């Protein structure tokens, strides 16, 4: 035994905590292997057919003694003579047996049939065999092999029919879509965590290691019991509520690694100043213009300037060369911010300046235990992921307490998680909008230095055309911009078993959230478009949501049939309040002075704002299930919901659903077949709803704003008087958005369960879409009324095929959906998606087309020569080497009406492949994800090809641009006067398909007899190590940018637009899981 000396000094903070853990570990090591009065037990574990099963964990109950079977299924373990041994193996039903003095204990383990799983769906749990809807269970273990703040990021590879869009920014949002997109706005599914509804925002606060199971209810027949909120699907998450009987069992999971971006702009863009000049020069020469000399001097022998900017006051009369470039500047006259001197750079690699590798760590400790009368599970988590962009960090700490108590017929308990997280750097959901850390600023020219001669941040001042900011400064100055989320989420519940058949349950769920953010806006005297006043803001959002549900369940089994009935009632309500203050022109920018107070800044600039919202839902529901001889299964669901968001006369909606199942293998005609072990055919139909709109929109709203309706009527030039206008048009007839879906599926187990296939085909139609179609400007700029109008349709299929072998397993899942807008408002044939780029409307929602289709001209290559220009339809600015747009309507003129659909951001097919293997103490696993057929609108080309705002350019731009001798070039002719080729066209549309090795893990379980950490599993993990794609932008995996319309989130209308998205992370990490 190792000696623990008493002479150590306690360290601070985390290391002290780690040391304490270490001591505990040592203590555990010391304990194991010291028990007395033991037998050496050996045995073989086999399948019912006699095949040896390796990798089966054999554990002595109530102790930490364990081992694993070898490839021949044999094991050896020492156990007390009266011990109980538990055998557990992946895909097999656990077996417990008593030693009872034997020295040889052989065990047969049956594979678990897929259909025998018990899954939690909607207020209760069900046998898989009784489920007639489309319900996918997530392999939580595989999902957790990715180092993510939110478990959602892994769902697309894990669940057929689910797409997830997210970026690599730590703690960023994951946008989950189940079976396509049903609505023009707000398509987030609802998350039910331990019975309480949660929004997407909570998912970053939920520790993935606390999750015991995730079920995705994909069709209405499964989800209809959640009625009004289930229109976009339901994700049911259960946390580790079950403790185990016995003494406290402690599990420690530690994972730590290093992340780096999967790709960088330095792979794509020039990093040498003189190379950049060659592009610039060519653009001027081809335009017939003199090449500017102010930065690079003589175009025929260009040189990097000594200074890109030196304030005139620092430059003597003779300190300029013949071209006016500054040769020497007087550093003693440097004065920040008025007289700056910025050196020229041979080539700044802006990507490298901001992006690099970053640590990521995840610590989990949980303690489980209990007795017959109670069970507890307490877990602690600390997660820290630094961004691969500098000064950008996400940290989360959480504590969860799940307990349950049984007292005869009464049981009660609670699940509560307290979590707090911090996003540093102010960019958790940076989606590339200009001003973000990535976007346009990272495309700064290489000739600009990072720092000026005094170490302050340098910028584009003096370099013509540059209006971007120093991206490193952006990151640095935002480092103290912190967003905090504090959440208490949980539920208390009680149940009463009145009789074996009849049970009552009541549950009160709550979600108390407090979010806050502080932000700092800095000055940029080194920029062409200098910002000279700084500012701060601070805000606080608080919300209280509660839900109270009461259900009664009755179960009755007759000889060959069983019947269950569930009736329930639920009420929920939420309210929130937001308060923001800001002030400009701080006297002191020290962190300790960044408060919104009159004395700290310019009191005239102080601005305070508050807003709020309320809503309530009331629901009644029932569900009846019938099972005859495990052969015929039927279920019926009915839910009625009333929502405060809707018009008084349309408040209540009814959501019926029905499901039928036929377990065909239980029919006599299939009784003796050897192939089909278990086949269940399913049919489901149902209606779900959506009422996810801002509250209070049933009446018109009025308001005003100092910058919108207030006016200086007295002509004072310094004061304004209040004014009001209508801000939103109400619609008292608002009703539910209605989602009807039909699902036909089959659950098939082949070859005694060695191959499991799940296949679903669906048709999902949304009617009465809640949507705020634009009103004519004659109705004013008030938010248009939200109306129930429009139809959308998603048809598709999803499947999974899995094999659970004795030493390996593989699951392939795939999905396809086709989204179509069937009707907008009966009048409009289209409306544009959010207009958030500099090249105008690029996304359109058009009848018969998928939501968020790309829109523009069709680029038909380049004009070959003058004759080609003449022969072509009249096109503004047409010239050889410029992009030729197709005359779609054949009217001989290229104009508005020649724009058309030029691509869809929706994948044709997505697939995930999960692989696992174990041999002896070793195990390995991998997850591969792929998406095919989706297009990306590479908006960044506006900058790195067309050089909007004198941006840096692609490495191959000079070599691959059109010239009379390079007619099949990749890019149009470099031409300073070509302001035409950059119009929105198919030139920007690229194939966004990719296949990515999402995760790979190699693990080793130490033998139970190991000297150190017996039974612990250590692993090496790699994520996103390999990507195959033809996309030549930064990263084909990108989220839809944040976009909000009058009636909420409309990000689905701007999918697949590359505005510079935080790239995914390549992470290599090591981890350990140990129990003691």
């Amino acid at each position, binding site marked *: 035994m190792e000696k623990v000396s008493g002479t150590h000094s306690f360290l601070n903070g985390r290391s002290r905590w780690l040391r304490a853990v270490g001591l505990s570990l040592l203590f555990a090591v010391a304990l194991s292997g010291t028990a007395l009065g033991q037998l050496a037990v050996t045995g073989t574990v086999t399948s019912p057919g006699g095949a040896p099963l390796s990798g089966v964990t054999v554990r002595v109950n109530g102790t930490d003694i364990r081992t694993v079977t070898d490839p021949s299924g044999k094991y050896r373990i020492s156990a007390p003579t009266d011990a109980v041994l538990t055998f557990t193996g992946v895909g097999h039903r656990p077996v417990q047996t008593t030693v009872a003095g034997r020295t040889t204990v052989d065990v047969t383990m049956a594979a678990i049939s897929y259909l025998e799983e018990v899954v939690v769906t909607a207020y209760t749990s069900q046998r898989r065999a009784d489920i007639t809807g489309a319900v996918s269970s997530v392999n939580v273990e595989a999902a957790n092999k990715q180092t993510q703040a939110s478990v959602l990021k892994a769902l697309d590879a894990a669940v057929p029919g689910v797409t997830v869009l997210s970026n690599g920014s730590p703690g960023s949002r994951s946008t989950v879509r189940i079976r396509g997109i049903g609505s023009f706005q707000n398509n987030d599914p609802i998350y039910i965590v331990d019975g309480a509804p949660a929004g997407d925002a909570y998912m970053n606060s939920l520790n993935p290691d606390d999750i015991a199971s995730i079920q995705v209810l994909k069709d209405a027949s499964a989800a209809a019991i959640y009625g009004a909120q289930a229109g976009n699907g339901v994700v049911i998450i259960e946390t580790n509520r079950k403790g185990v009987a016995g003494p406290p069992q402690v599990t420690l999971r530690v994972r730590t690694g290093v992340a780096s971006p999967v790709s960088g702009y330095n792979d794509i863009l020039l990093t040498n100043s003189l190379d950049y000049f060659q592009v610039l020069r060519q653009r001027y020469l081809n335009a017939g213009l003199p090449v500017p000399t102010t930065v690079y001097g003589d175009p025929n022998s260009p040189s990097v300037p000594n200074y890109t900017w030196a304030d005139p006051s620092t430059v003597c009369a003779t300190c300029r060369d013949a071209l006016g470039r500054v040769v020497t500047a007087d550093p003693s006259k440097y004065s920040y911010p008025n007289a700056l001197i910025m050196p020229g750079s041979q080539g700044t690699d802006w990507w490298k300046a901001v992006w690099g590798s970053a640590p990521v760590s995840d610590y989990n400790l949980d303690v489980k235990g209990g007795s017959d009368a109670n069970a507890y599970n307490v877990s602690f988590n600390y997660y820290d992921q630094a961004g691969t962009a500098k000064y950008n960090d996400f940290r989360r700490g959480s504590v969860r307490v799940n307990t349950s108590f049984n007292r005869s017929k*009464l049981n009660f308990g609670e699940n509560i998680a307290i979590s707090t997280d911090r996003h540093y750097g102010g960019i958790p959901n940076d989606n590339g909008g200009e001003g973000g850390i990535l976007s346009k600023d990272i495309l700064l020219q290489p000739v600009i230095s990072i720092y000026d001669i005094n170490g302050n941040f340098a910028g584009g001042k003096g370099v013509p055309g540059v209006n971007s900011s120093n991206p490193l400064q952006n990151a640095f100055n935002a480092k103290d911009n912190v967003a905090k989320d504090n959440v208490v989420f949980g539920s208390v519940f009680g149940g*009463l078993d009145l009789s074996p058949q009849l049970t009552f349950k009541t549950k009160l769920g709550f979600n108390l959230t407090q979010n806050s953010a502080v932000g700092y806006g800095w000055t940029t005297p080194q920029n062409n478009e200098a*910002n000279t006043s700084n500012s701060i803001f601070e805000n606080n959002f608080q919300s209280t949501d509660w839900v109270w549900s009461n259900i009664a369940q009755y179960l009755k089994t007759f000889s060959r049939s069983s019947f269950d009935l569930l009736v329930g009632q639920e009420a929920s309500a939420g309210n929130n309040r937001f308060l923001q203050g*800001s002030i400009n022109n701080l006297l002191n920018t020290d962190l300790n002075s960044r408060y919104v107070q009159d004395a700290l800044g310019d009191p005239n600039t102080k601005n305070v704002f508050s807003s709020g919202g309320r809503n309530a839902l*009331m629901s009644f529901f029932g569900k009846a299930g019938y099972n005859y001889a495990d052969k015929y299964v039927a279920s019926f669901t009915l839910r009625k919901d009333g929502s405060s968001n809707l018009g008084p006369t349309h408040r209540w909606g009814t959501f019926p659903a029905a499901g039928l199942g036929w377990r065909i293998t239980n029919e006599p005609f299939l009784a003796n077949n050897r192939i089909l072990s278990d086949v269940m055919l399913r049919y489901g139909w149902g209606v779900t709803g959506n009422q996810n709109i801002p509250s209070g929109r049933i009446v018109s709203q*009025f308001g005003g704003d100092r910058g919108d309706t207030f006016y200086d009527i007295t002509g004072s*030039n310094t004061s304004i008087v209040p*004014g*009001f206008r209508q801000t939103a048009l109400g619609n008292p007839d608002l009703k539910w958005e209605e989602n009807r879906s039909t699902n036909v599926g089959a659950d098939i187990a082949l070859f005694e369960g060695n191959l499991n296939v799940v296949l679903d085909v669906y048709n999902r139609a949304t009617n009465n879409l809640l949507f705020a179609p634009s009103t004519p400007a004659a109705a004013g700029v008030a938010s248009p009324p939200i109306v129930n109008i429009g139809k959308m349709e998603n048809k598709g299929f999803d499947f999974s095929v899995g094999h659970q072998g004795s030493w390996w397993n593989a699951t392939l899942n795939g999905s396809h959906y086709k989204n179509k807008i069937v009707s907008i408002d009966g*009048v409009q044939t289209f409306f544009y998606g959010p207009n958030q780029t500099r090249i105008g409307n690029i996304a359109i929602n058009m009848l018969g087309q998928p939501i968020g289709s790309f829109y523009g001209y069709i680029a038909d290559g380049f004009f070959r020569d003058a004759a080609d220009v003449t022969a072509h339809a009249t096109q503004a600015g047409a010239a050889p080497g410029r992009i030729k747009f197709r005359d779609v309507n054949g009217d001989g003129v290229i104009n508005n009406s020649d724009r058309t659909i030029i691509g869809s951001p929706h994948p044709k097919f997505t697939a995930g492949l999960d692989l696992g293997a174990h041999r002896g103490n070793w195990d390995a696993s991998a997850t591969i994800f792929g998406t095919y057929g989706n297009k990306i609108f590479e908006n960044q080309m506006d900058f790195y090809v067309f050089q909007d705002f004198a941006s840096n350019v692609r490495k191959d731009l000079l070599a691959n641009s059109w010239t009379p001798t390079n007619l099949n070039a990749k890019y149009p002719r470099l031409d300073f006067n070509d302001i035409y080729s950059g119009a929105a066209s198919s030139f920007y549309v690229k194939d966004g398909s990719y296949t990515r090795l999402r995760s790979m893990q190699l693990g080793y379980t130490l033998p139970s007899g190991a000297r150190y950490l017996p039974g612990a599993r250590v692993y090496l993990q790699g994520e996103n190590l390999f990507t195959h794609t033809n996309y030549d932008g930064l990263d084909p995996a990108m989220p839809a940018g944040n976009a909000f319309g009058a009636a909420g989130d409309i990000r689905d209308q701007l999918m697949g637009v590359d505005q510079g998205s935080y790239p995914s992370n390549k992470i290599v990490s090591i981890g350990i899981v140990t129990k003691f």
Partner: protein
Amino acid sequence: MATLSKKSLLRGTAVMILATAMLYGCKDFLSTASEPQGTLNQTTLANRAGVEGSLIAAYRALDCTDATSSNWGCAASNWVFGSVASDDSYKGSDGLDQPPINDIEGYHWGTPGAGDYLNTKWTQVYEGVVRANSTLRLLKQVKASSPTTFSTADANSIAGEAIFLRAHYHFEAWRMWGNVPYYREDDADFRKPNIDSAAVAVEILKDLDSAIKLLPTTPRNGQVGRASQWTAKAYRGRVETYTKQWAAAVATFKDIQSNGPYRLETSSDRVWSAYQDASNGPETIFAYQASSNDGEPNAANSNYGERLNFPYSPSHFACCGFDPPSQNLVNAFLVDPASGLPLSITAPTTWNTSNGPFVAGNMTPVDPRLDWTVGRDGVPFKDWGNYSIAWVRDPQNGGPYMPKKIIHEKGSGAEATVGWQPQQQSSINIHLYRYADLLLMLAEADVEQGDLPGAMTIVNQIRARAAVTAQGPGTDRASMAIPINDPRITWATYKVSPYLTFPSVAYARQAVQTERRLELAMEGQRFFDLRRYGTVADVINSYITGLPTISGGAENTRRLYKQGAEPIIAKHRWYAIPNLQVELSRVGGVDMLKQNTGW
């Protein structure tokens, strides 16, 4: 182990059921939660404060508002549609910045980009109409429910102001698109068909006549931002001029000239000035009342619509280099040394041959208004020190000059301290209509009525005012504007003399139109004036190609991108109605808004 008694079980169940029953017995549960938060409702506003506030909001829509401005098409001055589209200015900045303005400047008004800008203008003016009409409805409601709330005088003035504003906004729409729909307070159908441009003018005049009857002779409450009877009369004359009702125009204008409150400012420096004492001078008929440092955190109430039109870094303003005056405009300020008359009058085929840049020290005589209108190299820039070509964002693209009228004086203290680029934001008022504009329209009408001496008197009155001050060295207010022959002036020779005779109607017409260009240059009027004169195709096409009327001076050789400009043809009579609005007007598959001919 203790077990629960049956009694307590029952009791527990009973409590649960009772609580549940209470919850859904409580009918208010849903309706209470449906009340909107953080907003006002119609009832809250049905009173004096509501009506007055609604009217204030109707005034506010004169320039870009937070709620509508997605680009700069909303600017009160119409700099995109009135100046850049004319021979006054270029888009400026660099070639790829705000590309929709390239389309406006190149007369490609059917492009998606141009459509965005046009839609912003359309949205802005109809938002003004909506706000004016809401005021009228609310006023009616309050008058009906609580007749004593307003005195008759107040009620009349409020109605008059709202009707006047409605006329103004429709006028803006009308001079852009001609055939537009007209909305009054009782209209509930927002997909009305557009009406013929002549009919629109009738409607505008109808509203102006109502406003004239209702409005007091001085602005209500002495608040200079409000319209008075004289404002509405002045507008009436403007519409009469636009519709060539010359006799009516002369009558209207002469009434204002004799009986109205307006006069020319004493000197040019006071016309566009951010000094408070000059911001609502006698020349102001109607202006957007800009304010800065008024507690609004983004300086949105300042000269917001003009905020791009400032010199670039390293000037004090730092951004953005839009709307630079054209070489053609600079040349228009050249003066015949002998007569002191515009060179374009005395040498109509050679005045525009100089390709510039016209910089300090070139002593060719110029009209002193040049240096109140155009920033040029080496010449003092109001009181900001000498303008430098280094302040130009991209001279190759936009030429060496920058606009000057909207620049606030350093000494005025009008500059904002907040918002994006606060140094481009000030409380300088934006003239929507000033007395010189009115006088020159009277001169125009006089010419058409054959009163050439009357026209010449007015032109000379304007020229006499122009001769009072020129740009001075500009270290303080006193030295910013000095007599035009002051020896401190080393950068230019200023000369502006009166006409001695208008020998013919054609000459007079040319003289009045030229004077109007010089006096109102860069104020967003020029393109609309050219259309009104019926000379827009001639003037613009020769502005771009130099042909057929002017030798040399083709802008498509000065600014090469202008080679992509379309020639002005019949369809350019009106701007294209924004496609989006045409789409949105569709009822039963039929576009209620009919697109203008040719678009």
